[in-house]
């Protein structure tokens, strides 16, 4: 068993709340990458990310400290594209109301950084080999 735990907090109008959710895999396969450093102005930096089976994915967390474009499987994003905002992680887990933005098994990803500063990116994937 392995878990990927997500925690969301909000503070507004004098009220604070925290919500947690957990993605669980009985036969876990973790694929982690980072920090991936992408220089300012770099186009399509290739990152090896083999072994991600989209049908087995249980949880995804991707974060960057700068705005970056992440494209999966090709420089045209044939496996999906994410325009990631600085310090706003992309999260997905089984049961989310939003659709997973990775659309096919991942063999590689390409990152473009036009943010004006060097970017540091972290990626975490949890998949279940028994799924």
């Amino acid at each position, binding site marked *: 068993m392995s878990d990927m735990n997500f925690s969301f907090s909000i503070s507004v109008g004098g009220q604070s709340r925290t919500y947690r959710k957990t993605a669980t895999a009985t036969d876990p396969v973790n694929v982690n990458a980072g920090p991936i450093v992408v220089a300012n102005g770099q186009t399509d930096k290739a990152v090896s990310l083999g072994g991600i089976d989209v049908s087995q994915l249980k949880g995804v967390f991707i974060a960057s400290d700068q705005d970056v*474009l992440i494209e999966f499987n090709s420089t045209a994003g044939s496996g999906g594209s994410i325009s990631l905002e600085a310090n706003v992680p992309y999260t997905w887990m089984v049961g989310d109301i939003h659709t997973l933005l990775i659309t096919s098994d991942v063999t590689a990803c390409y990152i*473009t950084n036009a943010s004006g500063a060097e970017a540091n990116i972290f990626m975490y994937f949890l998949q279940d080999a028994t799924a």
Partner: protein
Amino acid sequence: MAKPKPNEIAVYAVFEKEALPEATAAYGHRNGVTIQGYEPGTLTLRTFRGKYDLGISRFVGEYVFVIAAKPDDEAKTFTTLPGFAPTTKAARPSKAQPKDEVGNV
């Protein structure tokens, strides 16, 4: 977008991902034509900073230029940048240009 520093100007631009290398090649180079009223050789391109809009498949952001105290004729220059057409019309008076050269005495 972050506010430009006092010695900088920022100019809005939109271009495709494939054009980013052309923009980065001009980093550190000075303007070969007038931009926003600043005479050739008085602006150094520091960077482009923007975010990719998946809806229009383009980067949306701004070029950031550092304003020099005086023109540099020896510096490498650029005349065009992706997604942005430098103007030869003075949008505002250039501080770097002597008044008698623009008939403003």
